[in-house]
């Protein structure tokens, strides 16, 4: 099995930018969830990866800066 390299990009969220149910489900079980500034919220569920400080948007989805999608 290939070891991740230091330069390898972290995995993207599999649900893209519009799977609100999955983003809420993942955040519900995440110990690292922290709500971002309200102005950055895009999900209606307050606890959602889409509203989390640690999600870094990409062109297709987002990556988790806390490594919770690994």
């Amino acid at each position, binding site marked *: 099995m290939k070891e991740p390299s230091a330069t390898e990009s972290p995995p993207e969220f599999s649900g893209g930018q519009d799977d*609100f149910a999955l983003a809420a489900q993942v955040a519900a079980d995440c110990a690292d969830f922290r709500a*971002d*500034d*309200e*102005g*950055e*919220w*895009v*999900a*209606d569920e307050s606890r959602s990866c889409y509203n989390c*400080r*640690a*999600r*870094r*948007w*990409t*062109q297709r989805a987002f990556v988790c*800066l806390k490594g919770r999608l690994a």
Partner: protein
Amino acid sequence: MVFEAAGRVDRADRPSLMRLLISIDDTDNLDSPGTGELAAEIAARIQAQGWGRADFVSRHQLYVHPDIPYTSHNSAMCFTTAVERRRHREVIDLAARFLRETAAPGSDPGLCVVDLDALNDETALIDFGRQAKRRVLDMPAAYALAQALGIHLSEHGGTGQGVIGALAGAGLRLSGDDGRMRGTLALPPAAKILRAKDLAAVPGVDRVTAVDGTAIPPETEIALGPKVKTVWRGGRSVLLVTPTEPDSATAWRTCSNQELKIY
């Protein structure tokens, strides 16, 4: 039209007031307060000094691309205010000092302050903002444009890369057709339904329309969602509403976060 929207703060009876558009970007890291919070704090401090009232903070999405070193979302935050002309320098100094003292380690803060009454080529600034939504721009281009237009643009730590987004944010706010408000409207407590004309009278709301731009008759009842905010469209702060699902108490409701994320 655009200026009217950008400078909602009324100066009709005080011609000595100058309208300023203030924009910041790239002030945060993963653990710090967000850029929106800092913009709101700068606005609050200007008001606390008694220099002038500030309009709401708007959030503007910029290009998301691997070559852009944003923290998590690459958005700029912007607001307008009107102050006595003699306060111009003090406003810049207050915002710059605040960013130096407050911006997060590892961030690259940029500050842009536009004197709207002195700006003679708004199209160039708006174009820069629109370009920043679809391609990678660089700092020399931002500084060159700011200098040509007489706009204050300054960096306050790190690489200073935030000057690009700060200038772009100012252009997008000025365009009148980009972004959504940070925060929510101050509505009557516990209100669940309001008429369109009552919503249009709420401070910060210029008009109430359907998502497609159709005007909503004043007596129309609108169901309020948990977070009600406006978007910047057609040079106005617009509260967007959408048809409700069948069997709802009203025919219209306010848009949700999810529905507003494209703005």
